[in-house]
C-alpha cells in the first residue's frame, strides 16, 4: 500500500506547488467573495437566522466540507477511472501488488490530498479569525473524513467506468445538488419542512454539520459521534466494495 502511495507522491512532487496555490487561493476567493460580499447582505438583513454568528463564520466550515467532498470525488472517480483504463493501475497489475493494495494506496493518497487542501483552507479561515485553537484541528479531521467518505465509494464505482463522461454526469446530477440540500450555504432549517428529513440522510449534511459544529465550538459528543459513524460507514463500506470491484476490473 505504501509503495502505491509512493508512486502517487512521486507524481505529486511535480505539481504540488501549483496545487498548493490553488488550495489557498480557492478558499481565499470564496471567503472574500461570499463571506464578505454576500455575508454583509445577510448579516445586515437577517442576523438572527443563522445560529447567531456572522455569515462568514457560518458559511466557511460548510464550504470546507463541500470542497473536501468535491476534491475527493473528482480524484476518487476521474482519477481512478483514468488509472484503471490506461494509467498507473495497468502498469502495476503485473507486479506482485494485489488490486486491493492498489485501491488502498490510491485512497491513502487521496486522503493526503484532501488533508492538505483542507489544512490550507483552515489556515485561511484562521487568518480571517473564523476559527482557532484545537477546534481547528477537529475541523481538519472532520473535513478529511468527509472527503474519504466520498472518495472510497467513488473509487469503488469508478474503477469499472470505461467512459469518463459518466463521471461528469454523476458530478452534475449527484454531487452538485448535494451542495444545495446539505446546509452548505444556508441552514437546513430554512428548507421546507418536508424536505429536511432527506437532508439529514445526505452524507454531505453530516460532513457539513460535523465541520460546522467543530468550527463554531458547538459540537456535542452525541452529535459528532453520529456524524463520524455515518461517514466512517461510507468510507469503510466503500473500501470493502472497492476490494471486489478493483479485482473484477484489473484481474478479469
Amino acid at each position, binding site marked *: 500500500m505504501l*509503495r*502505491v502511495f*509512493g*508512486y502517487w507522491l*512521486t*507524481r505529486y512532487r*511535480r505539481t504540488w506547488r501549483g496545487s498548493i496555490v490553488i488550495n489557498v487561493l480557492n478558499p481565499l476567493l470564496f471567503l472574500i467573495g461570499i463571506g464578505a460580499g454576500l455575508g454583509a447582505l445577510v448579516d445586515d438583513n437577517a442576523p438572527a437566522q443563522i445560529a447567531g454568528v456572522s455569515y462568514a463564520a457560518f458559511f466557511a466550515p460548510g464550504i470546507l466540507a463541500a470542497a473536501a467532498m468535491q476534491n475527493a470525488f473528482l480524484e476518487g472517480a476521474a482519477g481512478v477511472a483514468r488509472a484503471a483504463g*490506461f*494509467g*498507473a493501475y*495497468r*502498469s*502495476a*497489475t*503485473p*507486479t*506482485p*501488488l*494485489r488490486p486491493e493494495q492498489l485501491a488502498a494506496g490510491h485512497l491513502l493518497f487521496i486522503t493526503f490530498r484532501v488533508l492538505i487542501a483542507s489544512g490550507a483552507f483552515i489556515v485561511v479561515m484562521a487568518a480571517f479569525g473564523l476559527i482557532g485553537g484545537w477546534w481547528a484541528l477537529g475541523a481538519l479531521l472532520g473535513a478529511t473524513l468527509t472527503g474519504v467518505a466520498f472518495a472510497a465509494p467513488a473509487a469503488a464505482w469508478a474503477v469499472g467506468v470505461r467512459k469518463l463522461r459518466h463521471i461528469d454526469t454523476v458530478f452534475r446530477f449527484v454531487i452538485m445538488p448535494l451542495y444545495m440540500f446539505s446546509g452548505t450555504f444556508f441552514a437546513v432549517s430554512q428548507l421546507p419542512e418536508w424536505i429536511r428529513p432527506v437532508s439529514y440522510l445526505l452524507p454531505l449534511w453530516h460532513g457539513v454539520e460535523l465541520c460546522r459544529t467543530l468550527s463554531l465550538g458547538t459540537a456535542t459528543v452525541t452529535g459528532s459521534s453520529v456524524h463520524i459513524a455515518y461517514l466512517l460507514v461510507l468510507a469503510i463500506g466503500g473500501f470493502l466494495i472497492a476490494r471486489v470491484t478493483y479485482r473484477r476490473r*484489473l*484481474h*478479469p
Partner: protein
Amino acid sequence: MVSEHSLVQASKLAKIYPARGSTAEFHAVDGIDFAVERGESFGLLGPNGAGKSTTMRMIAATSPISGGSLRVLGMDPMRQGPEIRARLGVVTQDDYLDNELTVRENLHIYGRYFGLPRAVIRDRATRLLDFAQLQEKAGDQVETLSGGMRRRLTIARSLINEPDILLLDEPTTGLDPQARHILWDRLFQLKQQGVTLILTTHYMDEAEQLCDRLVVVDHGRIVAQGSPRELITRYATREVLELRFRLDERDTAAQKLRTSALATGGNDAEGRVELLPDRVLVYTADGEAALATVHAMSLTPLTALVRRATLEDVFLKLTGRSLIE
C-alpha cells in the same frame, strides 16, 4: 516433454467469459495443453482474437482460469498470484508507461512495486538503461520517447526484478522495421543469456526469428505445434510460387490453375493452389518448374515470385485463412 521442471504447465486450460447482457458466453481459450521449459523461447502464434493475450494473462496470474489446470513456476496462479508475479517480467501490448515521469523514475517506481531496495533499483536501472540503449534519455520525460524507445523501456522495466520468465505480448506490433530489428536484437541477446521467453505474435517472421518452439492458436484452440522449421516442413512445401494476375484475367487464371496438375499434385505429392484476394499461391517442391508449367498453360501473370515457405503458409494451410487480414 512435460516434466516436473517445466516452468509453465497448462492442461486443458480454458477461459470462459460468462454471458453478459446481449453478449453471449465466450470461450476465449478452449482447452489447450502446453509446457514451457527453462531457457526455452516459446511462442503463441495466431490471428487477433485467437486467445493469445488471454492465455498470457492467465500465465501472468492477472486473470483467473475458468477450467483445466495451470502451474507457473510450480505454483498455482489462483492462490499464489503475488508470489508468481514477483518472479515474472511482463511486457503488455500497451506499455502503460507514466508519461509525466522520467525514464529513470519509471524504472524506479516499478522496482518499488516489487519491494526492491532503492540502491538495488539504482544499480539495475543503470544496467538496464544500457541494455535498452536509453542511457542518454535517463532524465527525459517518457512523453518525448519514440515508439521503439518506449517499447525498449517497457522491456527494461520488465527486467527490473530479474525475472525467471519474460512474457511478451505482441512485442513489435506497431513499430517500424528498424525499431523492430533493434528490439529483436535485444530479445535475442536475452535469449542467449538463458532467459525463458514466452511471446505472442501474429508476425510469422518474428516467430521464426525468436521462437525455439511454438503453438499455432486459432479460436482458442491449438491447431499445431513444433519448431518453426518442423511446422513448415510438415504443413507447407519447400517453395511457394506467388502469382499476380490482371484483374480481368484473375478469375479465369485461378480456375485453370485449380484444375491443373499443380493443384492436384501430379508428380508433386504436396502440390496445392490457394486463392487469396490479391494473389494466387502455388505450393510446390520446385517453384521454377511450377512457373514453367504456368507459362505452358499460356497464362501470363503480371508478377511471379518464387520464395521459401513461411509460417504464414502453415497458418493458411491449417485454418484456410490468412494470418493478417
